[in-house]
């Protein structure tokens, strides 16, 4: 229990972060920015993990560990995504997501 701060505050912060991430994902054109939006989404989820762990089961650590895993996976994902983006740049000379539309009907 963190003194004086109720759980709702944390949840509101994480929800706001999540939807900022979603909005960024859907609206931005730049692939790097989209990647950043994904990081926002992941981190909002991380906040939820940690907070629920802290408030509901203070004597256990699963939530914390899960958050650490998510951070690790996010790092790996970022490296792969950036490698992809570099290749897309080499091919198309820009990294606008609207130009990456080869895979369709």
């Amino acid at each position, binding site marked *: 229990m963190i003194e004086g701060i109720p759980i709702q505050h944390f949840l509101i912060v994480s929800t706001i972060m999540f939807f900022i991430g979603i909005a960024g994902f859907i609206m931005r054109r730049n692939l790097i920015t989209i990647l950043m939006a994904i990081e926002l989404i992941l981190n909002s989820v991380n906040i939820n993990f940690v907070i629920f762990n802290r408030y509901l089961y203070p004597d256990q650590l699963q939530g914390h560990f899960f958050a650490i895993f998510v951070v690790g996976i996010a790092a790996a994902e970022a490296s792969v995504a950036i490698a992809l983006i570099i290749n897309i740049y080499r091919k198309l000379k820009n990294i606008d*997501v609207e130009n990456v539309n080869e895979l*369709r009907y």
Partner: protein
Amino acid sequence: MYNYTILIPLIPLVIFLVTGLLGMKWKPIISGLLGTTGLGISWVLSVMTAITYFFGSHHEGAFETIIPFEKLWLTFSETLQIKMGVLLDPISVMMLVVVTTISFMVHIYSLGYMHGEKGFQRFYAFLSLFTFSMLGLVIATNIFQMYIFWELVGVSSFLLIGFYYQKPSAVAASKKAFIVTRFADFGFLIGILILSFITKTFDFAKLTNPDGAVFANAAGMSFMGISVMTWAMVLVFMGGAGKSAMFPLHIWLPDAMEGPTPVSALIHAATMVVAGVYLVARLFVVYHFQAPDALEIIAYVGGFTSLFAAVIAITQHDIKRVLAFSTLSQLGYMMLSLGVSGYGGEEGLGYMASMFHLFTHAMFKALLFLAAGSIIHAVHSNYMYEMGGLRKYLPITHITFLIACLTIAGVPPLSGFFSKDEILVAAFNHNKILFGVEFLVAGLTAFYMFRLYFNIFWGKDRHYHHTPHESPLTMTIPLMFLAFASIFSGFLPFHSMVTSDKMHFDTHLHLAVAVPSVLIGLIGIAFAWLLYKKESKVPEKLAKQFGILYTATYNKFYIDEIYLFVTKKIIFNYISRPVAWFDRHIVDAFMVGIGTVTEKISYRIKGMQSGQLQHYAFMFVAGVLILALVLVYYI
């Protein structure tokens, strides 16, 4: 003691596999020699078996049924097991001798007859396959094994009739033979199913036990007012009638003459077509004790077929077709003889006579066909009006053919006289009408055989492509051997070898039957002599006299046309067409409809797959939100 008998069918099987797989890599003659040698070994083994079985140990009582080899082949359940084995009893031993003898002779003969033909190796491979199947059929220990080999002989017959597969008529004939016999085998299969359902066994040893213990279940069971056993046995006979070409399933046999002549001799005269007779003889005990009505039907079908075929044979011009109808007629004799037979001792005369006639008929009919092949080989025609005066050119064929004609006409002391006499006596004792029919047929037989003989060998020379010359030794040796067998096989003591209860009984010549039957045969010969010895207009005038009757007979009483009418006009139009319509417009349309609807919808919505990542993401999020709202507010 009889362990080697399993080799008799296995040798042809191995030869079939070897020549079938490797034959094309060899010179053709090697296949022929290999097949002939193998069959020779089988023949020697069969004759050895017969000698040890019939004469080796002197039997005071009945001949025993020996099963020297039996193996479980398929196990469906505890009670339903199918075995493969070798069964030796008088009729199967006799059939072993018949099949291997004729097959061996045909193998030798074909070395000359098929020389230089395209597909020589294939021919020998199929001959071996046929011999294997036929031997497997005769030594079957149970009815299911018999059925398997029954179908195998059907297949090999199909393959050999269609040997000249570039000739449309041969293809049509092979299809016809296969379809007609297959249709009959359908009845046979149902018969087997009923029989095994009642008795819970396939084994001949149990089925043909005269005490009939296995049929206890059948008592009182009936279907449509006829006892179940009669149904079963009539259905089994249907299979036999198909293979033995009994009326009305006879239509395939004359057409089967499209095959090479040695095949006609082996399959469609001596061995496969007697399978039906053999089947009835094999199950004779069942017929006699459980289904006497079925036996009655067999007698009448046989009698009718023999008369019907003999009448048609008189008018045919193709020599092989005359012989085919003659075969039908003689098969009718055998069936009739079984039909009028009783069980045990003198009563079983018909049974013995039938088997006796089967044996002698195999010899002389194979001889007739092989001689006909020799004639065709010399003049390159099947039609008797293109032949004449051949006795000068083909001395050996002439003499052997004459012997065969005399034999089939029942002139004593040739073998046909003895066997036919026994059949007539059996018919006389049982049923006077059938006796009358057979008596008449004996005269007709003599007449049409000698019509053939005089037309071919006497009269004036025709215009031949080249001077006809006698066939090579490979072809004449089998002729001489079979002529020898036709003359002397009548002296075999069948009454102490092949009888209904496997016991010896005494037969004697019934002069009251024998003398008239010989006389009518001689009258038939005399008529043929008068009409056909010299060229004359009399036969044509007679044909005109009979007018429509002659035309009907010449066209085989339009049975083929009736079949075609029934199948093409009635079954195709009124059954197949509606069924095809239903299939096309209901079943197919439903399936096609599913495909069409799916295609149309996907064509409409394919634009949604835009390739834009953010579209997908938007759809996904929107979907999740909607689902979340639904779950929260409505559930």
